[in-house]
């Protein structure tokens, strides 16, 4: 069963989120609406994000850390 998505957006990013029930347990489906890229986040991953220290989250937000890398 898929629940209709909600959109979380501002002028910098826009993603649709919904609870996905296709797998053996519930997970969050997140879609970057600008590129169509999708990621599923399970409960443990979500819990980890909740506990992520501010500094670690900040490092992930560096645009060259994972997304726009010359060496990727």
């Amino acid at each position: 069963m898929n629940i209709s998505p909600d959109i979380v957006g501002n002028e910098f990013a826009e993603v649709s989120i919904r609870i996905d029930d296709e797998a053996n347990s519930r997970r969050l489906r997140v879609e970057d609406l600008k590129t169509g890229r999708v990621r599923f986040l399970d409960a443990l991953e979500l819990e980890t994000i909740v506990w992520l220290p501010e500094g670690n989250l900040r490092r992930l937000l560096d645009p060259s850390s994972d997304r726009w890398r010359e060496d990727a």
Partner: protein
Amino acid sequence: MTEVTDAVGPAGRPSGPAARYDELIQPRRVHGSLYTSPEIFADELQQIWYRTWVYVGHVSEIAEPNDYVRKSIGPQDVIMTRTADGEVHLLLNRCAHRGNLVCEADAGNSSSFRCPYHGWTYRNNGDMLGYPFHQGYGGRNKLELGLGRVPRVGVYQGFVFGSFAEDGPTLEQHLGEAKGEIDRLVRLAPEGEIELSAGFLKHRARANWKLLAENETDGYHPQFVHASIFSVAESGIGALYGEKSTAVTRALGNGHSENDLRPEFRRLGVPLGWFGTTEEKVPNYVKAMRDRHGDSGAEEVLIEGAPHVMIFPNLFIAEIQLFAIQPLAADLTVQHVTAVQFKSAPEMNKRMLQQCVGSVGPAGMLLADDTEMYERNQAGVAELRPEWLDVRRGVDREEIDERGLTIGGATDETGMRGFWSHYKHLMTEGRVR
């Protein structure tokens, strides 16, 4: 009086920072070029808007962590942010790379801003987070380029002010006697907090910003400019600014001024009379006020009402409306207008919003009346003769009150003279060279 036209150049039109403000601003008159000269406007930006404390916004506009709103200091595009830890910052809306605007939306919630041009990303406190394809800069964390910041941010009773000067008077020193007027507004809120949550209207006027600032506490014009709306609404406001009124115009120092209508309201002795309503119509609000201030305290607060104060150079609180004056050119100004809202006072908030829309909304009467006058003034003052504008009304009947402040009658130009005295100080002795 002898005209002193030769003191300011052949055509009476001075130019540049060398403009002789001590001659252009006299006790009883000011020179017309002060409203029309692009050079003087540029000088004002440096000496006033980019130097003194300027009102920017209110903390209630960024109530949640990571909220932001776009504001301004004169022509400067400022983003007022609240970080996750609750700090308020004033950032300049300009990417440190190629100067692109980093923020387009008027308001939003985001921990960071990403420039659309090359993806440079900043935290909402202005610190740089990073730039894509970092090898071109020798690797990660090689640049220390943040967003520009307004160096000093001050908050008084939730009102956020910014100053581009690294040092100078504190916000509280700048506000001086005007603090008490802000306090008077806030004490009308049952929980002692106001909220600017009603949204803003932007009114453009083809006029110099000083015409607006001067008019805000000019008690001489209401009976003429607003006669039709007072008549239609059967309003008693006009009488507050009459020759028999016991209200006073007060110069509060530092260019601030007020129309103190309390003597009239005390004389009438009607709670909420200043707001044109009665206690029976807002029973929950009145009860909350009695709970907070006690019966006699609430009586006094409700009779005396809200302030009518112009805080130099750009914040005007007109009882239940708030205006931020934004100068864009010598002859172009935007007024940002909103209704004051009291925290936890829905009965009053609805009425204050309705009154605000009726008086200064798109089809409102008061601001439309005033704007017509500003634009007629601007057109007229560009005419070459006579060169001066007169500000002498009541100059020979001013008094010093018990606080040592200058007061004049309800219709006197005491506020204007206080404005010009401070302006002259900032543009001459107080100027940054």
